[in-house]
């Protein structure tokens, strides 16, 4: 099964993103920080599932979004990672790109816009 991993410490945001993309044909897993996501990704892959896309917040406790991207890229160079955050400063966007993110969306997000980006990255 192909999964989209939603990584955000806010249950409201995770639920909102899941609701927005639920009809796009992917199974969805949620994680509340970067470390939680890495563990869940490893478990999914161990049982034979694939990760199609990660949608990741930046400001999270335990492991933030940029650290997650760097860690994830040490084991997977190709799966797209989309940053979804309130942060919009150029230096942070540059750090995300350099870490290996595929795109950056600033909250509040337009639901149709998120689906369009998802289709461009994995459609």
């Amino acid at each position, binding site marked *: 099964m192909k999964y989209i991993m939603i990584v955000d*410490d806010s249950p*409201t945001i995770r639920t909102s993103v899941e*609701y927005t993309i639920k009809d796009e044909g992917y199974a969805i897993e949620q994680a509340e920080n970067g470390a939680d996501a890495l563990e869940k990704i490893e478990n999914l892959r161990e049982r034979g599932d694939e990760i199609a896309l990660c949608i990741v917040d930046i400001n999270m406790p335990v492991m933030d979004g940029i650290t997650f991207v760097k860690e994830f890229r040490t084991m997977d160079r190709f799966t797209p990672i989309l940053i979804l955050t309130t942060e919009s400063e150029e230096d942070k966007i540059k750090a995300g790109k350099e870490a290996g993110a595929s795109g950056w969306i600033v909250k509040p997000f337009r639901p149709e816009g998120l689906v369009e980006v998802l289709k461009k990255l994995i459609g």
Partner: protein
Amino acid sequence: MIKSTSKRFGKVLYILYPGDYYATRENCVLGTVTGSCVAVCLYDSTRRIGGMGHFIVPGALGTEEIYRDQIASHGITSMEYIIGEIVKLGGDRKYLRAKIFGASYLQDDESRIHGVSLATMRFMHEYFTIEKIPVEVDDLGGNARRKLYFIPTTGRVFRKVLRHNEESSEFIRLEREYIEHTFERRGTYGKVILFE
């Protein structure tokens, strides 16, 4: 936001205006005056981090849950700004407590502002339920402005109900401007960038 000094508390005082948010570990005071807007005070007493945000939900909400509502998405983002600043300082939303004030019925345009106050109240209650953040003080509604002082490191709030608008004329003007600006921008969403 402006930085000042409070003689009453003997601490640095940060005055937040409508639309502002701020989080800190500093032993200071955060102050504001609420009208139709809401002031959210969040703190983690274990880590001694706290923050305040002053905002509005720009319009009436639909009947569905807030995570499906486009007007509510602006309120969710306002909360993300405040909590994001607390997380950057080492906080974790799992340990936060909230005290919420404002959302009064005040302005001339009764129908719109009543809708906004009710929407802001409903948003606050749904948001904190979903986030499982305990609300220790829920002081929303009514028809008076509130002057607030919040000690972010302890979570203590000092509140005064204002009966006379002349005590807060600058806040009244700024709140009106903020509400107008927020309504104008409520169809605006964040930028989208795809990297090569």
